[in-house]
């Protein structure tokens, strides 16, 4: 709002500024609405985790880490899936909005994978007696984290930003191959990681209260992801606009002395 008033007072609009302002305001409104909804769902999920769900019979209280670890993993996979889709779209259509969604989702995917890699060892230390074991699922998840760190390094390291975006998009598509591998790793290879309790061919195998709490947590994290994604997307579009304004200013003929 403030930026529009100021630019209007300056008398001249940068090309497409008002449409972009409207679009940015719309994104921010949606992000705020989703944040409120996500906040309420997160509070409900936390209440269920600490006051509703019974303590699991075999693992005890440490099993409650499951309600933050699994939704973080789900959100990270969703984020990297979105990166792959939008990166493929960007390589095909060269639409900067697709690149903005891809880079926003990649950053959020990294945030949620970091949560997976932080909460997992806290559970493992109690359940397995070790913070980290080089077994297939853990190793592939760490690899996923490194792949998307590489995605940002590629974007930043290229002299030509467009080229950097293209290279990163290719990595965004190829890197997503790791996601199904992580999912099947516990079945294909000898793995110490617990096998799925919900996505099983025979159906979910857990107490109904455990499943309800898990689904509410998954829903809360999904809403949180989309709220943060909209904020991050708005930020990326603003960054693209700053870049465009800088280029326009540099191309403007300088006044004669």
């Amino acid at each position, binding site marked *: 709002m403030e*930026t529009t008033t100021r*630019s209007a007072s*300056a008398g*001249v*609009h*940068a090309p497409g*500024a008002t449409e972009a302002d409207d679009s940015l305001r719309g994104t921010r409104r949606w992000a705020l609405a989703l944040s409120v909804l996500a906040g309420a769902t997160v509070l409900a999920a*936390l209440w269920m985790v600490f006051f509703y769900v019974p303590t*699991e*019979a*075999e*693992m*005890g*209280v440490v*099993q*409650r*880490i*499951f309600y*933050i*670890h699994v939704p973080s993993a789900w959100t990270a996979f969703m984020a990297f899936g979105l990166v792959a889709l939008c990166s493929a779209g960007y390589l095909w259509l060269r639409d900067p909005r697709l690149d903005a969604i891809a880079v926003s989702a990649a950053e959020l995917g990294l*945030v949620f994978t970091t*949560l997976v890699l*932080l*909460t997992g060892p*806290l*559970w493992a230390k*109690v*359940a*397995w*007696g*070790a913070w*980290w*074991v*080089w077994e297939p699922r853990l190793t592939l998840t760490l690899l996923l984290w*490194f792949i998307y*760190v590489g995605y940002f*390094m590629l974007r*930043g*390291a*290229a*002299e*030509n930003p467009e080229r950097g975006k293209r290279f990163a998009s290719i990595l965004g598509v190829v890197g997503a191959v790791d996601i199904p591998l992580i999912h099947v790793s516990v079945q294909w290879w000898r793995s*110490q990681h*617990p*096998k799925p*309790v919900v996505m099983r061919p025979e159906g979910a195998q*857990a*107490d109904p209260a*455990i499943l309800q709490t898990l689904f509410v947590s998954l829903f809360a994290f999904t809403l*949180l992801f989309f709220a*943060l994604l909209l*904020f991050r997307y708005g*930020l990326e579009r*603003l*960054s693209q*606009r*700053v870049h465009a*304004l*800088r280029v326009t*200013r540099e191309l403007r003929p300088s006044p004669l002395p």
Partner: protein
Amino acid sequence: MMRPIRLLRLAASIAASLALAATPATRVSAQDSAPTTVAVTQPATSGTLPGEQAPAPPRTLRAYWHVFIAYALAWLFLFGYALSLGRRFRNLERDVDALRGAF
């Protein structure tokens, strides 16, 4: 194509990753694991037969601490990330204002 400093940074990161990967793997045998170790192949299940007494879940202080740290760390991390988004937004809006003033 790439600046030398960035290339060096990339090489350092790869070296650090390889060094991390080269450390001897921690293998947990049945004897090594803590008494709180449970059957990890079938977690989060309530698979107790009727009339059969389920083994008492491990309620060690360490387990409570780990749950507390996991939740505190996760929410602090997410909150910090949301704050960083807000700060980056303000900085970019300031840049847009400054650049528009130049038109």
